[in-house]
């Protein structure tokens, strides 16, 4: 008798679970992030942001009784074109037609042709290379191209009274693109900009930093600003050497957007690096809109769950995950080609943690609002503090916390 009851209960349980399973439709979303290579420090932030977004989407879908669910499949791009391509090929074999990522322009360049040929919608949260500003392809980018950031830094340099800038930049797609954009914007106003590139794949940059100091002395330490365009591993090494160099300690430093990511500040970076950045008052911009309720909620939840601040790129990844899910729901089926057609309209009406996502003809974010940031001592540690804002639409720089 007991056995019969047990068997009946088990049967009912299995039938219930089976029915629920049969009703649920799960769509895969590919996540391409750098877990190794030059962008490895950023990967975990992006993964966590995407995971949080999908959990929120599931909570909403469950509340309204929707049978749709999403499953993230996370692949490492190795921050390289081949790594990006191989990762996307693997995702395609698993049936993925909608992808969020990759983080770097190099990986995006490697997978673009495959995405077009296989009609896979790719939503990059952070690729900014001008070489990928191509219309009618399957790659959308949620961040404005580097040309806008270059104009923002040029405006800040002029406001600070500089007529010369020495741009010390990564010799890769991102670094050269950003450096060239700043040079053009700064020189258009009659100023002078010099470029000094470094190989971003080295382990140590002592010789390059010495060369930077030598060039700065030639140009004049007082009247020349130093602009650093770097990612975290190379940037921290460079700043570590620079803080020991008497010439560079006297210089006025500016940084590209990544220099204001938490990965440059304690506890992710040595305290002395933060102290140096605060000492030289390193300034720059990050393409983040002014605080809005979505961003505030995301940042609070992220802090509660992971015990640390999200990186600025995490905001964009969070939005990319939401947009991927919303586009799928709007289309009503899992189809990369149809999702690609619907995406610009969904993005146009979307306000996320990183702001509005109106896209231009190349599928890149059209309007950028940049927070002006400076490294400062805050509560016994060091952190980036927002002191102003630059808007690409009007080209105006507003300082509200000097």
């Amino acid at each position, binding site marked *: 008798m007991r056995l019969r009851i047990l068997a009946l209960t088990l049967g009912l349980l299995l039938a219930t679970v089976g029915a629920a399973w049969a009703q649920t439709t799960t769509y*895969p979303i*590919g996540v391409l992030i750098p*877990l*190794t290579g030059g962008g490895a420090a950023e990967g975990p932030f992006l993964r966590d942001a995407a995971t949080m977004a999908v959990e929120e989407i599931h909570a909403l879908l469950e509340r309204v009784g929707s049978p749709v669910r999403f*499953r993230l*499949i*996370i*692949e*490492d791009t190795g*921050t*390289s*074109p*081949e790594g990006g*391509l*191989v*990762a996307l*090929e*693997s*995702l*395609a*074999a*698993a*049936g*993925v037609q909608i992808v969020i990522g990759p983080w770097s*322009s*190099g990986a995006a*360049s*490697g997978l*673009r*042709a*495959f995405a077009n*040929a*296989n*009609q896979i919608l790719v939503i990059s949260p952070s690729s900014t*290379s*001008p*070489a*990928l*500003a*191509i*219309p009618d392809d399957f790659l959308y980018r949620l961040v404005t191209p580097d040309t806008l950031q270059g104009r923002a830094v040029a405006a800040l340099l002029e406001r600070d009274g500089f007529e010369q800038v020495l741009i010390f930049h*990564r*010799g*890769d*797609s*991102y*670094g*050269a*693109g950003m450096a060239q954009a700043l040079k053009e914007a700064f020189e258009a106003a009659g100023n002078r900009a010099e470029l000094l*590139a470094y*190989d971003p*794949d080295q382990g140590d940059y002592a010789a390059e930093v010495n060369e930077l100091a030598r060039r700065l002395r030639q140009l004049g330490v007082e009247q020349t600003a130093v602009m650093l365009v770097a990612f975290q591993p190379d940037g921290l090494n460079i700043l570590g050497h620079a803080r020991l160099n008497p010439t560079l300690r006297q210089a006025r430093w500016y940084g590209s957007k990544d220099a204001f990511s938490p990965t440059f500040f304690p506890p992710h970076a040595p305290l002395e690096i933060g102290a140096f950045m605060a000492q030289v008052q390193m300034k720059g911009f990050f393409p983040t809109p002014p605080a809005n309720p979505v961003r505030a909620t995301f940042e609070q939840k992220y802090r509660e769950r992971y015990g640390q601040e999200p990186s600025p790129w995490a905001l964009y990844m969070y939005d990319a995950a939401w947009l991927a899910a919303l586009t799928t729901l709007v289309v009503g089926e899992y189809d990369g080609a149809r999702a690609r057609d619907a995406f610009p309209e969904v993005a146009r009406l979307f306000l996320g943690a990183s702001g509005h996502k109106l896209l231009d003809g*190349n599928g890149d974010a059209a309007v950028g609002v940049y927070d002006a940031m400076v490294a400062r001592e805050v509560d016994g540690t060091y952190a980036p503090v927002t002191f102003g804002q630059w808007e690409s639409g009007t080209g105006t720089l507003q300082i509200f916390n000097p």
Partner: protein
Amino acid sequence: MDLTPLVVSFVTFFGIYLILALSMNLEYGLTGLPNFGKVFFYSVGAYTSAFVVSRLMLALGGASLVPWSAEAAVFREELARSEPWLAIGLFLLCLVLAALVGAALGSLLSSPALRVQDVYLALILLVVAEIARVYVRATEGFIGGPHGLGGIPNPFRFIEGAGPRGLAYAGLVLALAAGAYVLVERITHSPFGRLMKAVRDDELAAQVLGKRTHWVKAQVMAVGSALAAVAGVLYAFFTEFVGTEDFDSQLTFTVLLMVILGGAGNHRGVVAGTLIMTAIDRFTRPSFLALLGLQLPVDINYARHALIGVLLVLLILYRPQGLAPEGRVRTAAREEVRHLGVSS
């Protein structure tokens, strides 16, 4: 479930890496030349493709665009779609040109280095590869500098559908890899192959017997470099993009690991080593586990690298000669042939 992308990716990259590993085996496994600049010769093929295709297609299409711009990439893609024979012709031209350039650079760059000891040769070639990569990245006028160059059209662009097109290309790569295998096998089992082994095993003895060992090394480097350049062409036309990020020295050591795993000096072993390494890379991915319905408690993206490390340590500890140790030369030596002729 459509496994075509996985099959295409696996076969294509297996073929490309097999050509590289066979060329490394010819140089290192059979002649004892530690070519730590293998990635340079691979990049020569990719750069040659990017340079030739970008300029020629714009010239033939009558467009005056910056070759590495986004507009030029779109122009080339559209031209290749409307003129399929042009894309095929350019692909064949690049194969021949890259092989010639690779062979010339292989013998030219290595000839001064061949007069030094193995360790110095390895360092010189490693440095050459790094300098070349940094130079190309810093020189915009070649392949767009740090941005790289896109719009290198797949020669099978005329085939409708990504799946059939990918399979056709994978088949072509596999056929060329098979051709490379036949070539290195024939070289290995020829009198020249014996000479290569003599240079590796005792160069002084070979010199005493009147053999010009420098010339042998230069010839081997030329053949190996030509093969690596062909692999670079295949890579460029597969990804349809060439950027310097893909050509760092890590790739050289990945190829070397394939040779050591399979068994230096044994081409069949190298095939097995390449197959195992490609399989580890493809089948330890979250996407593949998702295909099988598996979800691991650890992030396999990190575990994959640890697995390769463990494999290498186990190999060194328990099977330093590789999976397939070097066998005997299958063709008879001249002395044996003469002896057989006398006795018959």
